[in-house]
Structure formats: C-alpha cells, structure tokens
C-alpha cells in the first residue's frame, strides 16, 4: 500500500471501530438523525479544517482560523442588523474581507520570509481584536433569511436531516478533494510541502501558490464563520475560540503529515467526524464531563503522531525496477 495511505487507513479503521463500539453500547447512535446532527454540529469545524489541510500540506500552519470565524460572525451580524443589508450581500462582503486578509498573510509569509506560525499568530490577534472593536457584545441576528435557511433540510429515512450548513460542509469537502488531487494548484501545494527549493526549480510559482493557500484557508474560515452565524443566529467576537487547534487536530488525525507533503482532504473529514463522535458519545453517556472530549482528542492526536513517525521514518521500501538494455 502507498505509504501516505496508511495513516488514512488507520484513521478510517479506528473511526469504524469506535463507531461500532459506541453503537454496541448505545444502539441509539445508529440512526440517520445522529448522523445528520454530526454534520450540522461540526459543519463550521469541517469547513475550516479543509482550508487547514491545504495549509498543512504545504508545510505551513494557520493559527488565525478561529479568530477569522469569530470576526466573520460579528461582521455578518453587524452588516445585517446595523447596516440593514441582505444576509447574502453581507456574506459576500464577509468572504471578500476574509479572502483579502488571507492573501495579505500569505504575501507576508512569502515576501517577508516570516514563518507562517508568526504571521498567522499576528493575524489571529488582529482578527480577534477587530471583532471586539466592531462589537464587544453578542449580536443576535433576526432575519427571515436565517429562519428560512434553518428550516430548510433534506429529510432522510429515519428522521435524519441534512441541513443547509451540513450540506455546505460536504460540498466544501468535495471541492477540496478535487482541488487537492485533480488540479495543478493542488500539485503545487504538495510540491511546496515536499521541498520548496525543488518546487521552485521545477517551475512551481511559489509566491502565487503560497498566497493562494492562505487566501483559501481564510476564505474557508470566513465561510465557516457564516455557517457558525447561521448555526447560532448570532455574531460574537469571542465565538470559535481555539477552533484552529481543533482543525489542526482533525487534519493530523485525518492522516496529513504535520510537516507537509503527505495527506488527503478526505482524511480530514474522518478526523472531524471522529471528534464529533466523541462529543456525541459523551452526550449519550450523560455522566461524563464534556472535557473528556479534549482528553480523548489529545490521546488520539498523540497516537497518530506516533503512527506517522513509525510509518515515515521506516526506510521506504525499494520498489522493483526493471532495466532494459
């Protein structure tokens, strides 16, 4: 099996086993209703994690994701409630702002040769601070559009609902998979993660690719913010604190190498679902503190990092070569 597929396979197997064990204990978990809620409750995390996957594949990190989500919720709420704009217009503006923000971070990373860790840390403070300046208090969003969206869903047999935001997340994943594996941009992202020097010598437009990667990540974080505002019907500067870390965890658990170059967008979906499963399990159990989610995620993360070490430090198997004279 391809080396980079192994962590992904491990994640998939662990998810299947954990889900099976959870169903065995709580048969109620086996329903489209639970599955639908999985998607809805983790939609914003999943969308942000797709962007994070690209960043990590290229060998970078984006710490500004949670702050951009928070900022977007506030911006959307302000534009709708105070500016009187239609939500769709507000969404477009918010996405534009997020994209420009990401592009600026990408440009700083490439042209100033500052590590992405530092640049996006600064971006995190800027976005979080900006959100508080817009409004320190939570703004409730009341608009017919929001009500319509929250009432729109596809009903599955068994009472499960695929909500709009759950659907958006699945579409984003589909988009991410195609982008990563079937486009030249995707190839360039993997190339940067493999070796930036080689990539440049092979003609990868390093500046453009870097800027696009962070633009993509921030835009998806903006979309996650929109989804979050739809999910909570509010904009709050302190919402989604620490989501970037959950996203990084999902990406790594999903089999992407933290140092870049190896991984799959589809793996990130399983990583997000695994986190959702743990949360749902705790809700079903009823006696456990919700902080157990963090402990389980921490243990999983640690396990996967060890697994990747083992898989990637083992010398690559030599492939068979046939020489013809």
């Amino acid at each position: 099996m391809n080396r980079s597929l192994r962590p992904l396979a491990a994640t998939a197997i662990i998810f299947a086993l954990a889900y099976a064990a959870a169903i065995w204990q709580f048969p109620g978990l086996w329903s489209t209703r639970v599955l639908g809620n999985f998607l809805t409750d983790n939609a914003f995390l999943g969308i942000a994690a797709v962007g994070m996957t690209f960043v990590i594949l290229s060998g970078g990190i984006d710490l500004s994701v949670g702050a951009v989500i928070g900022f977007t919720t506030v911006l959307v709420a302000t534009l709708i409630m105070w500016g009187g704009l239609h939500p769709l217009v507000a969404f477009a503006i918010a996405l534009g702002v997020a994209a420009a923000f990401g592009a600026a971070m990408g440009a700083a990373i490439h042209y100033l040769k500052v590590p992405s860790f530092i640049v996006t840390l600064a971006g995190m403070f800027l976005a979080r601070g900006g959100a508080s300046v817009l409004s320190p208090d939570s703004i409730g969003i009341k608009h017919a559009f929001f009500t319509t969206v929250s009432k729109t869903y596809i009903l599955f047999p068994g009472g499960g609902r695929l909500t709009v935001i759950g659907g958006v997340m699945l579409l984003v994943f589909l988009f991410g998979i195609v982008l990563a594996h079937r486009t030249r941009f995707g190839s360039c992202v993997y190339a940067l993660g493999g070796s930036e020097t080689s990539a440049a010598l092979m003609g990868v437009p390093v500046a453009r690719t870097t800027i696009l990667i962070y633009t993509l990540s921030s835009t998806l974080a903006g979309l996650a913010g929109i989804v979050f505002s739809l999910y909570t019907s509010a904009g709050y500067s302190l919402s989604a604190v620490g989501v970037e870390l959950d996203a990084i965890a999902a990406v790594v658990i999903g089999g992407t190498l933290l140092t870049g170059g190896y991984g799959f967008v589809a793996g990130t979906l399983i990583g997000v679902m695994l986190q959702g499963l743990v949360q749902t399990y705790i809700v079903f159990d009823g006696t456990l503190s919700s902080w157990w989610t963090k402990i389980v995620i921490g243990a999983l993360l640690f396990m996967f990092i060890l697994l990747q070490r083992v898989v990637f430090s083992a010398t690559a198997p030599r492939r068979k070569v046939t020489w013809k004279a």
Partner: protein
Amino acid sequence: METDSATAVLQARGIVKIFGQHRALDTVDFDLRTGEVHALLGENGAGKSTLIKILTGAYQPDGGEVLLQGTPVSFRDPLQAQGYGIGTVYQEVNLLPNRSVAENLFLGHQPTRWGLIRRREIDERAAALLATYGLEIDVRAELSEYSVAVQQIVAIARAVELSGKVLVLDEPTASLDRNEVDRLFEVVERLKSRGLGIIFITHFLDQVFRLSDRVTILRNGRKIGTQPLAQVSTTDVVRMMLGKDVAFDHHPTGLSGAERGIPRVTFKGMGKAGRVAPFDLTLHEGEVVGVAGLLGSGRTEMARLMFGVDAADQGSVEINGRAVAVKTPAQAVAAGFGFCPEDRKLDGIFGDLSVRENIIIALQAKLGWFRALNRDEQIELAGRYAEALDIRAANHDMPVKLLSGGNQQKVILARWLAIDPSVLILDEPTRGIDVGAHAEIVRTINRLREEGLALLVISSELDEVVAYSNRVVVMRDREMVAELTGDDVAPDVIVRAIADHPTRQEPSA
C-alpha cells in the same frame, strides 16, 4: 580557443565572475558541441560550479557573454534557461520525494481537461517516456521509494523533456554504485547519440575517460585548457588540475632528509567502511607529513577519522607508545590533537566573536566550565599567539569575520596552539586565501615543525606540499596508495602517484 559556431550549441566567451574581491572566474572560454560529452574538471574553488551556475542562469556573469547556438543569451534564472533548452541535474536530486514518479516528470506541464489533471494520461506518458530510457517501473509510486539511480534518471528524463538541447550533469554518480553508474552511462550515451550537448562534472577521473569526448580543466578561476580525451593521459589531466608550476625537474627541498624526532602518534589499521580504507601512519616529533590527492580521494575523510569527527570502525591510535581512544573530537583534544578543518567559515571560525574569543575557545573547552579564564589571562594569551603568528588585526576585540582569509586561518592556528597540542592536523590551510598570504602560512607551518610539533597537512597545492613536507602520503579512491620519502617528495612524482592506474571508483554505499 575558437570553435566553429556551427557545431557549438553552447558557448561562453571571456566569462568573468567576481565575488567581493575574489575573482571566481577570470575570462573563461568554454564551448559545448552537439552530440558530445564534455567533462569539466577542477579542484574545489577552481570555479566549475560558478561556471555551471552562469551557464544555467543561477548567476549572472560580471563580464563576457553566453551564446546559445550562436545567439547571445542572458538567463534570469534556471527556469528560464530551461525554457531555452538548458537542463540541469544536480547531485542531490531536485525533485519531489513525496510525489509520484509521473507527477515529478510532468509537474507544471500536466495535461488538463476543464482544469482537471488527466492522471491516466500522465501515467501512460510517464511510463512510455521512461521506457525510452530503458526503465520499467510503476510510475504511480512515490519517487522516494526508488533508489537514487532511478531518481537521477527521472531527473534526467524531466530535464531532457523540458529542455532538450543541453544537459548539465553535476556530480551525478557521487552516490551510485558501480552497476548504477553503468546504467546511467548507458542513458547518457543514448542522449549523446540523440544529439544533446552534455556537460559532465565529476571528480572521478576514470569516469571522465570512460564517458567524455573532451575535457576542460579549470584552476583558480582560470581555464587551463580544453583537450580531446583521446589525446591526453591521466597524468596530463592531473598535472593540469593541480600544478601551475609543476616542474618536472627535481627541486630537492632538503627537508626529506631532515632529522625527525621520536614517534609522536601512530595510527594502526585505522579506517571506516565506505569512507577510508584502513591505513597505517606514524607522525614524528618535528615532522610534517603532507597529504596529496584529488578531491574526493578520501583525504579529508582521513583527517576527520584522526580527529574523531567521524568515529573509525577499526584500527587503533597510540600516542607516545600508549593506546588511546579517539572516538570524539573532545577525546582528540584531550589527547593533544588540534584540527583546522577545510571549510573555515563553516567549521572553524566563529565570525561574530572577537579574535580573542576565537583564540581562547578551544583552551576553555579543554579546561571545562568551572575553570574560566579571566579576562587578563585571555588578553595575555591572545596577545602572545597573535604576536607569535603575526595576526594582523586592528585590535583583538574586533570580530574575526572582518579579518582577511589568511589572518582568519592564523586565528584558528592560534586557537589550537593555545592548547599546546602535540599533533596538529591542517586541512587545506591555504584554501581561499590570497596567493600572497600562502607563503606566510607555509612559513608558519615550517616554524611549527621546527618547534617540535607533529603536523599532518592536506593540500592540493603541490608546490606548497613539497615546500614543507618531510614525507608525502598519496590518497586515491579512499585509500592510501603511496608514501613518498626522500627525493620522491617532488611534484612530478606526486602527480604520477595520484594518476597511476586510476582504478574504478567504488563509492560509499
């Protein structure tokens, strides 16, 4: 040398490249014909990599011009040079280890439909392309799953596919085994018959003779000559590489007969698999042993074993008749060894520290943390050695990086002299130093010998080796092949010893 431009695919005329005050290339001419393999030879610092970087667009020349098929060209970067038809394959393969072979071949040029990459077409074309190189492999597997030899051929295939006129091979065989070298050479022969001009850089002379049609030799930034290989012998080539004044008449220095003291250190059967074949060597008090050999012959590796930078896997060391362990540099220092490495800037000098700090650092390391030298002692020590070695610095608190190369070298010498060593190993002590300062280093070496030190000096400058050595050992193919004494310590004998039967190279596994 004028060549008919009809057959010259790539020409360089009067190329000059200056770094700071140093002329890395001084009016160098070079021409490459279609359908030939042209070897480029020279020791470290001779200017071959600078010339290659100019030809492939990585550097811009400060003078002269590059002509491609008779038309003057100037390349912004290697990528643009590639667009003009000049492809380069480096020793350390510049491809993506994490991507498939097929993607490495087509990255940046993937066929797409509606913006989506056509993976199957890429895989099919990659397999077909590699088949023309005699290689049948699964092109969907990661590049890193294949040996370096396969990676080299993938890199060559990519370079040829994208450029197609000139192929530059920079030390392509350095990490290949014999069988793989044969495969690579078959590929190169095939490309040559397709009419490509191929520049081949290596330090394995036998490979040059086996594969190349012509050879150009550089030394100290100047072109020494271009010769058809059919008309020259190995000895001629070595002579051109090493000695500007390699005289073939004897100039006995009288040193070889000089009195030497008691044995100071004896290396018995010391070696490390794949790096240096086991060797025996005794250094006496008041003796300089010169080490001659081409780049890659194992001379630096030998010094590193002696100083414990690399641990030997066999053999023993005796100092004054007693066996000692020298497995780490710290043990070597404790045993009274000093070592001035080849690359001063990388391994020797702490550029931002002062002259004084650079001099006392080895002594302080030997004393340990708890016996710090106080400032007065430091100043006294630094002053003493700076005077003894004639280090010219405005004051001893200025950063070492501001000194000239010769003075930096003397600072490193002073550092080791401060620990009062009994054995001093110098690797290329005159490299990168103005020619005028060479004589001074040579004088210093001679004086240290007279003071009773045992020295081992590695150098490519044969005139200098002869000027200070009592004995000369010759390294070839990672093996000590000759020990010259008496009247044999002469440039022509050394050249012959280096060139003698250049056996096939069996590089490190």
